[in-house]
């Protein structure tokens, strides 16, 4: 794979060419098979930036082309030996050219999507700037996904009143299959990486919570994943971001989605939280994600489920089957807490799971090893917040995390 960056005012154009051994089919770090749509994309920054460190350009490019790179990556400017080593060690890919020094920065920015998880991170770090990725159409790729209202999220992010940097990109359209989306989950940071020198960034905080980081995330069902390749500090991506002077920070890596929901909805950001982009004036209430989030929301508020979705609807089909389920810890949590769960689309699941408030109370507390992963400059702030607002898991509760899926 060979990549080229061309700046044009505030827009950075990324082009890439396949080496003889590369093909249109690739695999994402989480195991998802993907197919390439086109070999160019662009990132529009809020303003023209003087210069971007080659390691940042390489990092941003790698989040796009990694799935299709099989043997070697050739950047258009020399990258630092540390960055090259991180790619070589993490992926077994040859990197060139190599030369020049590493970069470093000072501030921690939040990769802010507008969902409950990243809003919780913003509540934990009230002084950290937000960086938001906004999807824009690709000039060459037909857009079949006009219902995806990325402009709504950008507007909501602006209303938070926080220091905000919006980067616009069509990089999701480099993916033909399974659908437009981030080629690697980390591509959401491509714009932030290009702005990192300009904003003096020395770390990037994400809203990945306990389930995504430690309980299998999107990759595995019912599996404890201390060595999560996407989000662990010592995973391949963790080491790469570290090498680019932008270590991955997961402030909510130790708490469940119930806690991030509670933290987000009790914060000043509540009016701006949005997890579904299908609806016009708010969440659509019709999709699988709305149903799942409503279960958590109802559980946090200890109230009955508010949904028009019935068990017969396709989006509710998976809950009519026996477990395991993706995000099962939250299904257990919700089934144990929502009054009248039997008559909801989760009634069958609740019967299978037999979860109780006691059996799921570990999800009300913070898993301490997640805090140990947070780099020094920010660990104390997050730890103090968790001590104050959430509380820590007991030894027994921590064992529930480590034994997840084993029982």
């Amino acid at each position: 794979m060979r990549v080229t960056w061309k700046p044009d005012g505030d827009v950075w154009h990324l082009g890439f060419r396949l080496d003889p051994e590369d093909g249109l089919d690739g695999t994402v770090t989480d195991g998802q098979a993907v197919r390439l749509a086109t070999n160019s994309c662009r990132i529009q920054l809020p303003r023209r930036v003087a210069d971007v460190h080659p390691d940042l350009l390489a990092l941003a490019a790698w989040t796009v082309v990694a799935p299709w790179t099989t043997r070697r990556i050739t950047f258009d400017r020399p990258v630092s030996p540390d960055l090259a080593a991180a790619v070589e060690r993490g992926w077994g890919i040859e990197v060139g050219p190599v030369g020049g020094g590493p970069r470093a920065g000072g501030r921690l920015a939040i990769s802010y999507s507008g969902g409950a998880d990243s809003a919780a991170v913003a509540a934990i770090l009230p002084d950290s700037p937000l960086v938001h990725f906004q999807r824009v159409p690709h000039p060459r790729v037909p857009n079949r996904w006009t219902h995806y209202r990325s402009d709504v999220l950008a507007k909501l992010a602006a209303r938070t009143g926080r220091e905000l940097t919006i980067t616009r990109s069509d990089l999701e359209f480099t993916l033909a299959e399974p659908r437009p989306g981030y080629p690697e989950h980390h591509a959401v940071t491509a714009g932030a990486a290009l702005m990192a020198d300009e904003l003096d960034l020395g770390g990037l905080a994400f809203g990945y919570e306990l389930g995504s980081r430690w309980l299998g995330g999107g990759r595995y069902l019912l599996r404890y994943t201390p060595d999560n390749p996407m989000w662990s500090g010592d995973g391949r991506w963790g080491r790469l971001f570290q090498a680019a002077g932008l270590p991955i920070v997961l402030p909510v890596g130790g708490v469940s989605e119930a806690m991030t929901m509670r933290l987000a909805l009790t914060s000043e950001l509540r009016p701006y939280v949005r997890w579904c982009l299908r609806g016009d004036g708010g969440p659509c209430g019709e999709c699988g994600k709305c149903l799942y989030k409503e279960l958590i929301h109802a559980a946090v508020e200890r109230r009955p489920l508010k949904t028009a979705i019935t068990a017969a609807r396709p989006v509710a089909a998976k809950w009519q089957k026996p477990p395991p389920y993706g995000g099962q810890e939250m299904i257990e949590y919700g089934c144990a807490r929502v009054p009248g769960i039997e008559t909801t689309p989760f009634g069958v699941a609740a019967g299978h799971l037999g979860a109780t408030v006691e059996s799921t109370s570990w999800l009300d507390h913070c898993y301490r090893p997640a805090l140990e992963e947070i780099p020094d400059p920010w660990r104390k702030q997050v730890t103090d917040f968790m001590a104050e607002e959430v509380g820590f898991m007991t030894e027994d509760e921590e064992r529930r995390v480590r034994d997840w899926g084993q029982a």
Partner: protein
Amino acid sequence: MAKRLRRAVRAWFDARYIPRAEHRDAVRDILWEVQAAGRELAELRREVETMRARLAKPVTAPVTAPVKVPDPRQTARWDDAHRLASETASAVDHLLQNEILLWQAVDRIDLEGAT
């Protein structure tokens, strides 16, 4: 129809990535989804047919206000425009992918010429 089913199946896949061991369950789930989508589709089709029939029939009941009935020729044109848009979009997909492979082939020739 195939598109709608594909979308349903894809949406299901998008919703959860699963290791190989779970594939048998996954296939059962997909079948369930496909059947559900099929039922939905049949329903939709019935609705469309009812609507078409209603449009084709002249309005016999006395009406107080003039009812605007879309011209069947016009609805046919809409259908045709939709078909053309879908076909064009997927043609463009293939064009772009072929372009990537074409550049790859060009680069390979350059590479071989250089050595």
